[in-house]
């Protein structure tokens, strides 16, 4: 029983990360009907930004091997010396990485997608694949192809739960941050003027334009929001699993995309639900069946959903107007 509970915690924690990435897919699809294949790679860039920021801030323990504490303090770029690993540092690193990736998302939209927006949807899709390849291979040139290992941003502790299960503080933080971000997103989309404009654009771009909405700005904002969430996911993953490499976004991106489709693409709560479902299922398959089927299971779910509920779990059936 405690093992099952533990696996459930693992699964929810992994699923929360898929959810965060799936949100970016679903929002961009919502406003542009574009599957942004570069999204998984923005997540990768987010993780790397977190890595460089953490090292730049001189987080103690960053590359600590064979180096004395004094050496590390000397490495700190801040005048005050090295920063102790703490929640504040973790948050600072995450927020900065989110800001950088938000800018990256805007740049990608401005220079890759906007120029082809007036052409067919297929053109945009192929452009997205191109951007994805650019980020993956560019990442290998800039960051190096070898895996990097994330420093510990805060002291991890194991907290005993009832029934012999335990939860790691990293998992708690991943869950809390993911939940906070999702609530924040919900507030932005449903309680702000910009959010209302986003919904209007996703409903009908032409009409929204006619109503005086600056659609270019709204689309850019959507990309910024989605990319920032992906960056947050990147840093959270790096906290849980301290290995990052330039190709880490491919499979995770695909699975998050499946999660978005599973929940009903274009639907924000659907993306969250889809991410959690994929995460929990995957963990259970690894824990109770075999890790060999780990990657297959997400796609098997996708096929089933497409067969029986093509619009996804929470997706609304919309008639194409002819």
């Amino acid at each position, binding site marked *: 029983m405690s093992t099952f509970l533990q696996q459930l915690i693992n*699964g929810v924690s*992994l699923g929360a990360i898929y959810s965060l990435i799936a949100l970016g897919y679903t929002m961009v699809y919502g406003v542009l009907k574009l599957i942004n294949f570069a999204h998984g790679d923005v997540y990768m860039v987010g993780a790397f930004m977190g890595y460089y920021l953490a090292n730049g801030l001189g987080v103690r323990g960053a590359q600590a091997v064979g180096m004395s504490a004094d050496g590390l303090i000397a490495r700190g770029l801040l005048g005050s010396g090295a920063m102790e690993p703490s929640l504040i540092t973790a948050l600072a690193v995450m927020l900065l990485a989110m800001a950088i990736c938000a800018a990256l998302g805007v740049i990608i939209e401005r220079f890759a997608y906007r120029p082809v927006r007036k052409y067919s949807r297929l053109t945009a899709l192929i452009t997205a694949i191109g951007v994805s390849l650019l980020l993956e291979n560019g990442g290998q040139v800039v960051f190096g192809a070898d895996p990097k290992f994330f420093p510990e941003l805060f002291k991890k502790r194991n907290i005993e739960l009832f029934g012999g299960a335990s939860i790691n503080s990293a998992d708690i933080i991943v869950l809390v941050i993911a939940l906070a971000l999702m609530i924040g997103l919900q507030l932005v989309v449903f309680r702000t003027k910009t959010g209302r404009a986003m919904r209007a654009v996703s409903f009908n771009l032409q009409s929204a334009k006619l109503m005086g909405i600056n659609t270019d700005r709204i689309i850019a904002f959507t990309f910024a929001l989605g990319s920032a969430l992906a960056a947050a996911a990147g840093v959270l993953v790096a906290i849980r699993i301290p290995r990052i490499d330039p190709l880490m976004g491919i499979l995770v991106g695909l699975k998050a995309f499946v999660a978005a489709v599973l929940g009903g693409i274009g639907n924000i709560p659907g993306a969250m639900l889809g991410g959690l479902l994929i995460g929990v299922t995957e963990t259970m398959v690894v824990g109770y069946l075999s890790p060999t089927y780990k990657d297959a299971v997400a796609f098997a779910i996708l096929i089933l959903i497409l067969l029986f509920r093509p619009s996804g779990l929470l997706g609304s059936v919309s008639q194409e107007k002819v």
Partner: protein
Amino acid sequence: MKRILLSLLITVSLLTAFACQPGGSGGGDKVRVGVFMSLTGSTANFGISSVNGIKMAAEEVNTAGGINGKQVELLVQDDRSDASEAATIVTKFVTQDQVHAVLGEVASSRSIAAAPIAQNAKIPMLTPSSTNPDVTKKGDFIFRSCFIDPVQGAAIAQFAARTLGAKRAAIMVDRKNDYSTGLEKVINEVFTRLGGQIVATQSFQEGDQDFNAQLTSLKGSNPEVIFVPGYYNDVGLIAKQARDKGITVPLVGGDGWDSVQLYAIGGSALNGSYFSNHYSPYDTDPKVQKFVNDYKARYNTIPDALAATAYDAAHIMFDAIKRANSLDGTAIRNALAATKSFPGVTGDVTFNENRDAVKPIVMIEIKDGGTYAVRERVQVEGAAMPTMASSSASPSASTSVSPTAASTPAAATPAAGAKASPSPTRSATP
């Protein structure tokens, strides 16, 4: 007429050239040893370390007056990390150069390519570090002075069962890797035979990032030790995530862990875990320390496991030639086969009837701050010998656990000199 004269001239000059090649049959005053190694190409590092070790051994013997009064002459050839080139070189060794013995290679594929040639010419060949069991199956003139993977697996299992006293063990295996599954099979067999129980087996694939699900399952079965026969970068992550999950039992693995990267990844999560290796430069044994210091003085770097095994191989060969008291191939082979408890820096070496070395395997303990200490020298006992390693363990192999166990923790930082040599022997065995 002119043409006939010309061709005659060429023939004569060629004949003279051949005649100038080193001596006729055995009458020379030097012991010629052919060394083929990869000095360039993909595994150049392995070959260079090995040749360094062999050269040092030869010089030691020569300054001490040579073998039975004869100086050792090394013929070092670069096979450019290529198996067919290795075969060509050994052909040249046995026909043209008429060497008395052959040393090489690191990579099993190249040793396997060269072995039949040495076998046919009845020239003894000794490989210092090819771990594939097939190498010495090429014939009775082919020897190996390092452990083979099944023996390593047995040593790991025996160490856990006897020294750590573990009864319940779990295994994390990389399902798609021959090295990992090979070790897993042996560990499973031997640990069970020694009275232990494998309570859980979980698998992963190289490059996996998230081991939480597997580790949770392992934790549920309450193992006292977890075997992780994998490579250092997966092991580092597994260790980290295991500690995050509240798993505190030691992890035990093989020479795939041997890299300075290991501690860079796993950090303090690895403290108190163990892995097996050919030797450790931080061994406090005076013999090892003398070797390490001499090597450092000559080459200005800490000898890796390949340099140490090659150094031992050269000395074993020289010792056999000395005892044979003859340069005849068969005599040297017989003396080599009779090698008993040769005191090498990688441990005392005896050859079994498969001409594979039977020698202790070093179990290294990882300590705070990434320092290594030799915990024990494991001599695989008869009862623990895996069925696939040898049909019947040789008598000397049946000595009980670690007769030489000088478990004196010698702490030293691996970061100091051990450069990133990701487990040479393993990766050189394609």
